[in-house]
């Protein structure tokens, strides 16, 4: 006799949006469907990847410095790790 799917097993079948692989595949497809050279692409082409990566690392460093992990004098002014006190005058 042919087996029939019970309603509960039908309910438990994975949906595409629950499947991380399918979700990532859809995200990749959306990204790859975009034209390759947008404004950012043109900027990168002009600046060069190495320089952009350098700028990116400076921005990253700046963000890290502002958000936390301060060094030297600023370290002393910290009460809670990751939060800066108002600067001393």
């Amino acid at each position, binding site marked *: 006799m042919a087996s029939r799917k019970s309603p509960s097993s039908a309910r438990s079948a994975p949906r595409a949006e629950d499947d991380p*692989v399918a979700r*990532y595949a859809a995200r*990749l497809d959306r*990204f790859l469907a975009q034209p*390759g050279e947008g404004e950012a692409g043109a900027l*990168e082409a002009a600046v060069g990847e190495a320089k952009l990566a350098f700028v990116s690392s400076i921005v*990253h460093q700046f*963000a*890290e410095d502002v958000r936390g992990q301060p060094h030297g004098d600023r370290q002393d002014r910290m009460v809670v790790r990751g939060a800066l006190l108002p*600067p001393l005058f």
Partner: protein
Amino acid sequence: MFQLPVVDPGIPCALVPQASRRRGALLARTLLNAGIVDAALMPARPGPDHLRNCQTVLEGWVRRELGALRMLRPYFALNLREAGSDAGHAVGPSCTIEWGGESFGVRCVGPALEFLERHQPRLGRTVLQVLERQAFRTLPIYTPAIVMECASDVYWYGESDEDMALEEACGDDADERKAMRDNMVTRAMFDSTFPGWALGGRSRPVGRRTLQHIAESASDRRVANVIESLISVLGVDLPNYDWSFREGRFVGFSGVLAWGREDELTTRVLDDYEQMVSESGDYFETCGELTIAVEDHETFARWFDAMRPWCRATRALDGLIWQICEGDWSAK
């Protein structure tokens, strides 16, 4: 109160260049199309850097296939190349995969193999033969026979002993011949360091059924364990790897199996061999390399299919090497 400047959370901490993201995304899509990505391999939160996502997936895949190894240290490297042109033809982005093994150093196998040979004639030889054969299909290891080939290459003009080299250098001058022989690596040194069966020969290996019988009747658990590992190694049928299309000498050996603690010959020969090869500049270290167009998911899938048994064989080989290097084999 003074307001501290803040960086808007919408500003990313890292910028990934668009072209690089695109290459990464193409590779990620290809890995998905090749069917090797599953939910367990996916990073918890795939970031905008698709190359990093690919790296997480590939590392997970290798970990899953290889498991925890105790001796061998395989490595994989993947280089993406941009689209360009080759001899006037446009070539899309490609990817070169390289794999090999880092060396686990020098380990002694003489006591174990001699023990096995005493337990059952040809058993030690069989273990060495199987190990050598499978290592050349996965991650090559220096064994006594290979070390002697290196000696032949470095000192003996490719011959099986030093006679030709002495003839070339000294002619009939007996004193010169003696002086040279006293200062060089000779065949006699090999014969005094290793038993004859460890240096090759054509003796037939012990068959699988006999191996099973020896394992079942062995009162010594170590013998049974080695045979169990040996049968696992034999159980993976890998195609012979064709080394002939690689240029230069191979130096990426994954380890050295010396005979005993008093074996200084092995390291002396290998030092000289590796120095000679490095001076020649004509060598390669990887055990395999393959260049694939980034979007060619079928070739990727075939490579992963071929690497599954490779990983199984490597795991089995690792177990066998560990068995014969570890433990006290000197006592009967």
